[in-house]
Structure formats: structure tokens, C-alpha cells
């Protein structure tokens, strides 16, 4: 009577097998490895680089062991083998990068130093742990559970993009261009200023007021909705102009997207194997750098600013003292002389957009703020026909081998500034807060120029609002503490259940083991990160998971008082089900909300808790029942010990 159909057993089996397969990768150890990529992101690693790395490491390995007695005594063939064994475990090419695996952390670290000393700035080297998951598991997407930053060690930054400054800059620019066009169209105004994110104009008479209003309304029409919100005050001839919600959202998206782009490029320079650079919410950017141990260095690179300089091309009459020679960014053999005087820099640029002109030719339109517009106007008014250059200014770091006071050779990093020409175009008219660069050869060139201009302008300033750095030793310590708690908690529960419920207790314990396997499998499958609170969640699940079993068993005990064993087992399971279901749904609600409000580690707790609830329901209701049915189902039992 207490029998499962073959399909029910099959379902248990399938879940169990799938869970086990996806949990398997966690059993394979990770191997200390390094990843080498060319610093120039345009170049991808190839066989030549691989051979070069191989030679360097073998050479170092030989130096390392050449004085050992068994090396000196060995023949040539054995010698080569020993050198290779001592150098690295495996080296191969993957995704434009070279991966080298080592047998221990010491070799990994020393090899990194050796390679860096030999290759200096040519390559970026990142340390990471390569899982030794077999290929067949990788092919079905089974990977080990990802560790959160509190377990792997690393840096977490949250940056906030300052949209307000950008919005104000844009309004200032707008103010200037309206002043100019009102002057041209003889619209008279008494006052004009920007205040509280709004543009204010007070007009001298009704006529001007009406003309301006008409102009505003016309210009407010943009492709994706109204650009401005216009507030009219006819009694005093005042008009207030604010950005519409759509426009503000656009400004925000523009700034965040641009900053994301810039940050990604910079993070790549850091040489982290799996960095995360993501937008979070409206105006924040989260950066996670697993394995990075020096937050100061990371901050320096992330906070590094690129800049722009606009300068006139030097004419033949410009004195040599007042001109400078620069390379082009795209073509290092092409050079040009620019004047030393800088007209404007990147901080006055509030936007740069790639588009097409009226002849459908690619162009880049540039917005400056008020100060920038004025400076540009002054500089260009007497110089129509001359060429105007844009320099891209970058902070770069250079590594050098130097000998320190102790006589060791160490890598020293120095920063320097590099300036390259990204555009040199003829001035067609007097420029103001808005102008464009045309005559670009291709669409690609135009979009690249816009990107560079924006990178130099750094769309909006950013500030660090949150930082969490976990040192590698603490990460390791956390993993050990978490594992210890899980094992001890688990052992205590298993012992208790066996003593208290005997056969049923053992069935519950097996369910508990299955539960742990399933949690691991699901976590791997979801690709969710395991954090320290996440491990605590697993411990808690172990304690709470037996609850479902306990509910069932105590129910069976009660039923036994009135019914014969088989009926008691059946009714015990079915009566307890409703209770288990209700009780778990509510915990799931709490976990879900925790997931929504939590960040990082706490999210990890919510995930393991939710996963644990679902798997523990499955194991208690299906697996324990299955086992009990197998044990007691097919025979007549007179007494049941529970």
C-alpha cells in the first residue's frame, strides 16, 4: 500500500543524478594559475608570445634547480624534464589570452614576478584559480560554485555618477546659445540665469516674450518626446525652461553609459581575471575585482582621468618656442605641430555625439558649457580657415626594472602623461557652445572620435560611495570557518536524528545529505555566488530542513496510536504535507524580500536560504517517503519503532 510508482522513483533518481552532476565540479581542486594578455587590447596573444613565456619560465626554472645534486647528476633528457616540471604544469592559449597553470601558489607568484620583470609593460598578468573541472562537465555547463568577494578576497567598489553637475553644465551651455540666438533675432530680455536646474529668461516686452515662447516650443520637439518643460508667466514676461523627465533620463543614461565604457577600459588595465563592471540602479556603477589585494592601486587606476585639449595648429609664422610636435593616436608616424596655448580642456565638454550631417556624411557634434563656449568663440573668431586640433591626454604607467637599496632588482612604476592628436579639422565658422566636426572619412572614424572625446571629457564626475576590500587571507579564513560550521552543524543534527528517530532518523539523514548535494548542484547551476552569510544560510537550512521530517515523523507517531502502521505512515505523510507547504512558503516570502533588498553577502544568504527551502521540501516529501516506502512499503508490519 505504501508504494511509489516507478515514475516517482524515476523522478527522484533524475533529480538526484542531475543534482550530483552539477555538484561534482566542486570536488575538483582549483589550480593556481596566471593569465597573460597583451597590454594593447587590440592585440591578441599568439603562439609567439606563448613561446616567449615558455622560454622565460624554463630559464628561471633552470636557474632555480641547477645547483640541486640530483639535477647535476641527471642526463640531458631528464634535466629537460626536471626543468619543465619545475617551471609550470600546463600552458595554453585561450580566448586571446595565455593561461599558465602551476602546482603551487609559490611558483605562481614567483612566475608572475619573473614574467613581469622580463616583459614589463608589454603584457598584463592576472592571478587566478583555474578550476580543474573535466571537459565533459564543462560542456554541459557544470562549473564550481562561484565564490563571493568575502570568500575569494578582492575589492568591491560602488561609484556614483554626479548627474547634477552634468545637467547644470548642459543648462549653462543652453543658456549661452539662447542668449546668442535671441540677440540675432532681436528678442529683448532683461534677465537670464540658471538656477535650481532651470533656465530663466525675463523678457522686456510682450512681443519678445511671445517670440521666445514660440521658439522654445519649436525646439522642444525632439524625436523621442518633449525635451523641455516650459513654465510660462505672462504677467511678468518670464519663462522657465527645465529638462523634461525624458531628457533628464537621457542625460543620466548618457553619463552612466559613458562612465561604464571608460571604467571597463581602465579595469582591463588592472589585469583581473573576472572583473565585474555593471550599472546598478539609476546612477551607480558597481565594480568587483576578485583577487585584487591592493585597493589603493586599483582606485588610482579607476580614478585615473583622461583629458582633452583643443589647440590651434601652428602656422609657419609661429615661433618654435610656442609650438609643439605631437603624434596622431591612430597613426604613430603621422605628426603635426600645434600651438602651445590651450583653448579649452575636456572638463568644459558636456557631450559628444556621433551622427550624420544634412548630406548624410558622418559627423561628431560637440557640446561645451558656457565657459568653454566663450573661450572657443574668442579663439576661433579671428582664425577661420586655420586648423583646430584635439589632443587626447592620458595618464599612463610605465614599469621599469630598478635596483633598490638592498641590491635587489624590483619593478618600479612611474606615471607619465601622453598626448596624441585625435582630430585636426579646418575651422569653418566661429564656434560656440555647440559645434561639429565634419569631413570624417568613415562612420567608424566618426564613432571612434566621439567615444574618445567622451572618454576624455568623462561625461560626469564620479565618487566612491562604498568600498569593501577583503584580503586573501581573510577570504581563506572565512571559507574554512564556513565549512567548519557546516560540517559540525551537520554532524550534530545527524547524530541527534539517529538517536531520536532510529530507522526514520537514518532516512532523514540520507535526505539531509541529498539536500546538501542538491543545494550545491543548484547553486552551481544558477551560477550564484556563495558568500559567508550564504554558508550560514546552508547551516541554517541543515537545521531547519529536518523540520519537515520531524513534522512527518511526529505525525506518524500520533497516527500510530489509533491506526495500524501502514495507514499511519500514509496519513502521517499526507497530513504533514499541508503544514510543511504553508510553513515553507512563508519562509520563502521572507527570503525573497531579503534577496530584493540585500546586496552582496546578504543576497548570498537569501539565495542559499531559498534554494535550501525548496530542496529540503523535495527531499523530505519525496526522498524520505521513497526510502520509507522501500523499507516498509511492501510488507506487513505489526509494530513500528519511531
Amino acid at each position, binding site marked *: 500500500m505504501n508504494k511509489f510508482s516507478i515514475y516517482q522513483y524515476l523522478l527522484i533518481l533524475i533529480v538526484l543524478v542531475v543534482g550530483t552532476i552539477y555538484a561534482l565540479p566542486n570536488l575538483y581542486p582549483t589550480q593556481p594559475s596566471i593569465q597573460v594578455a597583451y597590454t594593447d587590447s587590440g592585440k591578441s596573444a599568439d603562439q609567439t608570445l606563448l613561446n616567449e613565456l615558455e622560454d622565460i619560465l624554463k630559464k628561471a626554472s633552470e636557474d632555480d634547480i641547477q645547483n640541486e645534486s640530483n639535477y647535476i647528476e641527471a642526463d640531458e633528457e631528464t634535466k629537460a624534464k626536471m626543468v619543465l616540471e619545475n617551471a609550470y604544469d600546463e600552458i595554453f592559449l585561450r580566448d586571446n589570452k595565455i593561461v599558465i597553470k602551476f602546482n603551487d601558489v609559490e611558483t605562481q607568484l614567483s612566475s608572475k614576478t619573473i614574467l613581469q620583470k622580463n616583459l614589463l609593460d608589454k603584457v598584463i598578468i592576472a592571478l587566478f584559480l583555474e578550476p580543474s573541472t573535466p571537459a565533459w562537465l564543462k560542456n554541459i555547463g557544470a562549473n564550481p560554485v562561484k565564490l563571493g568577494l568575502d570568500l575569494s578576497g578582492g575589492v568591491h567598489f*560602488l561609484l556614483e555618477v554626479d548627474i547634477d553637475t552634468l545637467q547644470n553644465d548642459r543648462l549653462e551651455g543652453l543658456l549661452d546659445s539662447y542668449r546668442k540666438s535671441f540677440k540675432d533675432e532681436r528678442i529683448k530680455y532683461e534677465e537670464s540665469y540658471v538656477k535650481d536646474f532651470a533656465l530663466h529668461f525675463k523678457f522686456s516686452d510682450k512681443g519678445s516674450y511671445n517670440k521666445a515662447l514660440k521658439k522654445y516650443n519649436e525646439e522642444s520637439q525632439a524625436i523621442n518626446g518633449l525635451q523641455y518643460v516650459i513654465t510660462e508667466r505672462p504677467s511678468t514676461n518670464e519663462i522657465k525652461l527645465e529638462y523634461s523627465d525624458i531628457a533628464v533620463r537621457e542625460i543620466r543614461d548618457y553619463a552612466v553609459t559613458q562612465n561604464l565604457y571608460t571604467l571597463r577600459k581602465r579595469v582591463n588595465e588592472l589585469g583581473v581575471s573576472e572583473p565585474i563592471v555593471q550599472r546598478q540602479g539609476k546612477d551607480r556603477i558597481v565594480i568587483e575585482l576578485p583577487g585584487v589585494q591592493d585597493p589603493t592601486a586599483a582606485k588610482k587606476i579607476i580614478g585615473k582621468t583622461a583629458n582633452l585639449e583643443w589647440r590651434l595648429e601652428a602656422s609657419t609664422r609661429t615661433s618654435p618656442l610656442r609650438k609643439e610636435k605631437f603624434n596622431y593616436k591612430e597613426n604613430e608616424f603621422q605628426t603635426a605641430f600645434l600651438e602651445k596655448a590651450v583653448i579649452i580642456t575636456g572638463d568644459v565638454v558636456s557631450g559628444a555625439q556621433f551622427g550624420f550631417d544634412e548630406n548624410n556624411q558622418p559627423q561628431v557634434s560637440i557640446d561645451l558649457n558656457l565657459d568653454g563656449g566663450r573661450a572657443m568663440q574668442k579663439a576661433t573668431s579671428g582664425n577661420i580657415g586655420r586648423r583646430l586640433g584635439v589632443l587626447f591626454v592620458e595618464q599612463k604607467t610605465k614599469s621599469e626594472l630598478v635596483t633598490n637599496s638592498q641590491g635587489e632588482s624590483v619593478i618600479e612604476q612611474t606615471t607619465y602623461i601622453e598626448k596624441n592628436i585625435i582630430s585636426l579639422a579646418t575651422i569653418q565658422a566661429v564656434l560656440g557652445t555647440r559645434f561639429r566636426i565634419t569631413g570624417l572619412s568613415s562612420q567608424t572614424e566618426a564613432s571612434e572620435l566621439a567615444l574618445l572625446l567622451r572618454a576624455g571629457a568623462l561625461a560626469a564626475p564620479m565618487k566612491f560611495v562604498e568600498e569593501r576590500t577583503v584580503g586573501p587571507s581573510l577570504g581563506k579564513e572565512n571559507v574554512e*570557518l564556513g565549512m567548519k*560550521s557546516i560540517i559540525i552543524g551537520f554532524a550534530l543534527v545527524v547524530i541527534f536524528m539517529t538517536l531520536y528517530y532510529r530507522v526514520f532518523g537514518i532516512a532523514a539523514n540520507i535526505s539531509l545529505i541529498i539536500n546538501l548535494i542538491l543545494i550545491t548542484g543548484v547553486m552551481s547551476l544558477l551560477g550564484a555566488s556563495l558568500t559567508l552569510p550564504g554558508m550560514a544560510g546552508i547551516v541554517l537550512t*541543515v*537545521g531547519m530542513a529536518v523540520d519537515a521530517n520531524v*513534522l512527518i515523523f*511526529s505525525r506518524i507517531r500520533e497516527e500510530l496510536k489509533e491506526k495500524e502502521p501502514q495507514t499511519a505512515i500514509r496519513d502521517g505523510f499526507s497530513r504533514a504535507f499541508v*503544514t510543511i507547504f504553508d510553513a515553507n512558503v512563508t519562509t*520563502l516570502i521572507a527570503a525573497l524580500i531579503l534577496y530584493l533588498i540585500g546586496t552582496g553577502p546578504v543576497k548570498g544568504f537569501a539565495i542559499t536560504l531559498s534554494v535550501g527551502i525548496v530542496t529540503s521540501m523535495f527531499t523530505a516529501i519525496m526522498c524520505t517517503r521513497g526510502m520509507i516506502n522501500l523499507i516498509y512499503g511492501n510488507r506487513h508490519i505489526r509494530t513500528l519503532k519511531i
Partner: protein
Amino acid sequence: MNIRFKFMKFRRIAAIISIVLFLISIISLATRGLSLGLDFSGGTLIEVSYEKPIELQSIRDTLEENGYSNSQVVNFGTNLDVLIKVSDQSGNSSIGENIFTILEKQGGPLELKRVEFVGSQIGDEFLEQGTKGALTALFMILMYVAFRFQYKFALGAVTALAHDVIIILGLFSFFKWDFDLTVLAALLAVIGYSLNDTIVVSDRIRENFRTERVLEPIDMVDLSLNQTLGRTIVTSLTTLLVLFALFIFGGELLRGFSLALILGVLVGTYSSIYVVANILMSLGLTQDDLAVPEVEGADFDEMP
């Protein structure tokens, strides 16, 4: 029917204890407030590990010399680990690194274990989100219980939850334990756990009200509590076992978290017996409330 423990005999005393604890907690929260951890208060925290024990006073002096007079310096876990907290409202994000450099110069090889910087604005947001989250959780659970049971049960369940949460918060406020994000997470888990207990008890009361038509409501409740007592104790025990394992072996970072959960399990177990049942009795739960056997229970009976 055997009713071994007459739980409801003590319901007035229990009610008084609960109310007193609740009031003390509220007063403590109102006067002393919570000692908010870094996540909510904002500021900088830095944990370093020395190779040999160091005088905390010397660190304090060095920090003071360098203009960090508003810092707290304590040992963390062992006497080799030192935790430094700086509450800086200016939002300077590099205090942690600066302090590390200063300590490195002061002497002693030391290792950077962690740096945490939380801008005050982010801290406020966490607090706001946390409060909103806890309230949303309470509300949704109320809705679920009202839907699955009956409003009197829902009221009982939510009162029990509020009781548990406030008392735990009160304890954290009274003993000035740090309240941070992990404690908040523990608190939400307590909501889940305590409800678990409550539902098991309510479920049994509902069932008995439908099947045992001869008893007085008070005996009905006592009977239900006795029937679920074994389970309540066993579950609380296994959960406490793992929580103590976590409290003892889980390290400093999880101490507040496991403490909140241990308290939660204790208070939650108590409240599922006394608070819920008490509310049901006070609201005068009658058989009419549950007279019509609903179909939902029957739906599941056929399931394994």
C-alpha cells in the same frame, strides 16, 4: 484526549511577560536606539592583523597624531587582529588606505584583512530599504496567512512576528550589540522561522477545531499545543544545534548574525506557543470561524 501540559493556564502570566518585554524593548529602542553597524551608519572600518600582539593605545596615539581622533580601536577575535572604525561624514573614501599606510610606518609587519567604506548616504539607503523590506515581508506574510487560514490566525501570526522582531531589536539595543546588514538578514530569517512554528501550531488548532467538536476552545488549544510540542522542541533543538555551531565556529563576522538567530529561535518558539494561542483565545476563536471544511486541505491529501 490527553492534555499533558495545561499551557493556557499560564496565558495571563505569559501575556504580562510578553507585554513587559515588548515595552522594555520599545523604551530601549526609543531612548538608547540601535548601535548601528558600519553598513547603516556609514564610515570606514579597517581590520589589520599583526604578527605579534600590539598595544592598542599605541595605535590610538598614532592615529590621533595623524588627525584621526574620532576613531575606535579594538581587538577583533584574537589579540593579533585589530579593528579600527572611523566615523567620517565627509565621505572621504580613502581613509582606510591612509590608515593602513600610517600603521605600516608605525612599525610591525601587518597584513590588511579588510577595508570597508560606506558613504553615509548609502548607509541611510540600506536602513530605509531594510525597514521597508521587513515591513513588506510582514505584510505579505499577513496576506498569505489570511488567505490560507483566517484573519484571526493572521492577526495572531503577525502579532507574534512583531513581538519577536521588536524583542530581538530591543535586546540588540539594550546590550549595544552592533546592528548591521547580516543582523538584518538574520532578523528576516527569524520572521520566516518563527512563522514556520506559528503555522504548524495554527494548522493543528484549525484541524482540531474542525474534528474535535466536544472540547472547550481552551482545551482545544491546549490539546493542539501538546500535540505539536514534540515537533516544536525537536525542530528548535536541531536549529539551535546548528546555530550554536555557527556561533562558536563561524568566526567574528557571523557572531551578530548567529546571535540574532539564536535569540530568534528561542523567542520564536515561545511566541508560537503563547502569543499566537493567546491572541486566538482573546479574539474568541470559535468553531464557527472554521466551520466549513475548506477544500484546500483536501487538495493536498492525495499528494505523496
